[in-house]
């Protein structure tokens, strides 16, 4: 996927708005003159916790307008807890935009976006871009329970068809969202997915059986987030266009190359992953 990192820098943003979408799910609007302009669907940023006490945290870019971008996160550990204490007017420094986003160059006409949990944060920009390009977009949205199907209306308003599943059946189908995708009568011509790894694996599986290609936005533990430490890798077929510059000979019986999720990804073609 094409490199989009040239406009990355440290943006010192101001929190312009804050909304608790559900218990433990926070949306922070960032006033940032050109972060939004630079961001492409599927890119992320590294948010620097103001206390300086912990590593920066990778977060998808949820919304991107002229001078406002936003992040949407689930409070699940120390760093997201700290970010959740930020209030309107506080400062938040972020490096970004980072990574290579979704490849929409094939101009797909009917796309299923599968999002689970915090993955929803990386789903809005591709949905908007595809709808703007005239494609049909269906959002397959999974969560533990109804309250955690956050901001679904926003996607409907943007023009997505909504399909939901919850673990407890409190909204949409009870069960996994990939089961809904699998039962789709008319198959999409491309799948984009963002969410927890087990969900991504299931999506890859469904797409393979459908005979369509899927792009997966992977989640990995990051350290640097910019390609400097090789800590966030995932095995890729050595033939992938996204494989990093590395000797390709098939030594030691291995035909994989470790690609950096933060640099070569976070979006990869499902059929090029060897996980």
């Amino acid at each position, binding site marked *: 996927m094409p490199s989009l*990192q040239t406009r990355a820098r440290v943006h010192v943003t101001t929190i312009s708005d804050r909304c608790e979408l559900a218990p433990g799910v926070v949306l922070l609007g960032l006033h940032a003159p050109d972060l939004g302009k630079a961001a492409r669907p599927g890119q992320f940023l590294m948010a620097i916790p103001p206390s300086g006490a912990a*590593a920066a945290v990778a977060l998808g870019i949820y919304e991107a307008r002229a001078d406002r971008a936003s992040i949407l996160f689930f409070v699940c550990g120390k760093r997201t807890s700290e970010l959740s204490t930020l209030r309107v007017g506080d400062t938040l420094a972020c490096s970004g935009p980072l990574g290579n986003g979704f490849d929409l160059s094939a101009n797909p006409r009917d796309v299923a976006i599968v999002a689970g949990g915090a993955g929803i944060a990386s789903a809005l920009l591709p949905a908007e871009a595809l709808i703007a390009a005239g494609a049909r977009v269906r959002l397959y949205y999974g969560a533990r329970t109804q309250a955690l199907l956050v901001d679904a209306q926003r996607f409907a308003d943007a023009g997505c068809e909504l399909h939901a599943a919850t673990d407890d059946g409190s909204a949409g189908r009870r069960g996994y969202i990939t089961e809904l995708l699998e039962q789709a009568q008319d198959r999409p011509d491309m799948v984009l997915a963002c969410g927890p790894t087990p969900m991504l694996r299931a999506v890859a599986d469904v797409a393979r059986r459908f005979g369509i290609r899927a792009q997966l936005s992977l989640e990995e533990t990051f350290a*640097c987030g*910019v390609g400097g430490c090789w800590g*966030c*890798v995932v095995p890729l077929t050595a033939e992938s266009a996204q494989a990093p510059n590395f000797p390709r000979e098939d030594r030691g019986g291995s035909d994989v190359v*470790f690609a950096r999720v933060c640099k070569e990804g976070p979006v990869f073609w499902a059929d090029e992953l060897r996980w």
Partner: protein
Amino acid sequence: MGQETVDLSVQLGSLTLAYPTLMGSGCYGSGQEFAPFVDLSRIGGIVLKSVTRQPRLGNPTPRLVHTPSGMLNAIGLQNPGIDFYLEHDVATFADRPCTMIGSVAGFSIDDYAYVCERLAARREIAAVELNISCPNVASEGETFACDPRLTARVVGAARATTDKPLIVKLSPNVTDIAAIARQAQDAGADALAVVNTVRGMAIDVQTWQPRLGNVTGGLSGPAIRPIALLAVYEVARAVTIPIVGQGGIESVSDALEFFLAGASAIGIGTANFIDPRIPERIVDGLAAYLRQRNLHSIREIVGRANVGFANAHQYEGDED
């Protein structure tokens, strides 16, 4: 604050660094990755990711775990091998506006000497660091820095291959780091990097599996700072060659502790993952600190921690 210039340059053997800040090996890629976020001309230099004789895919995943005030890594020296590296990568280092230092890892004395010689032949590389202390490779890697005799042999062999400044990177995972430092000095090291990561482990209590694909990893970041600082202090009292102190440095105050303990320069690794602006902040902060105290050079504070202060109340009883 006065605008009088202060001298932040330091010497590591014949190598002069404009700033006393080196980006730790394996943490900073080849610098280009961080260029959008930092002015590379305002850091002293970059220690490149360690390179080995053969290509290595590195360790299985996961390779990183965040821990309290630190992180574990077990990258496993993923690198394309020296041939590919010399052919594809090294030429691109020429235009970096800071000093580029190669890092060499290996599994035998011959490995180290071979890679060191090939790397040192390139003018893009200003100096060579010997990583004899990587805790994340199956067997041999760290053994060198854990054994005084092996340290002497591997440093001697590398020394014979090059006149470039030779920095030897030591492990904190030893009973007596000073003894190993002395061996490295005697075998011809121009400087010592103190320290590499501390060995550690984490377990996922849901799956009962280690949280690193390699089972064990190396702990870095502020958590290890007191450990690294003591290592620098002990090594400084044992050798006369300069020391690159590293381990958990994330602020100017942390950096000053290392200079006072005896480091001539400092390494910054994990802090770049907290905030890529830290290296520039440290350089600014060092200059301000020196100015406030009417000092002219960072070299004036190296090793100046005052450990002579006695306390009248120490009382040991009648030991035998």
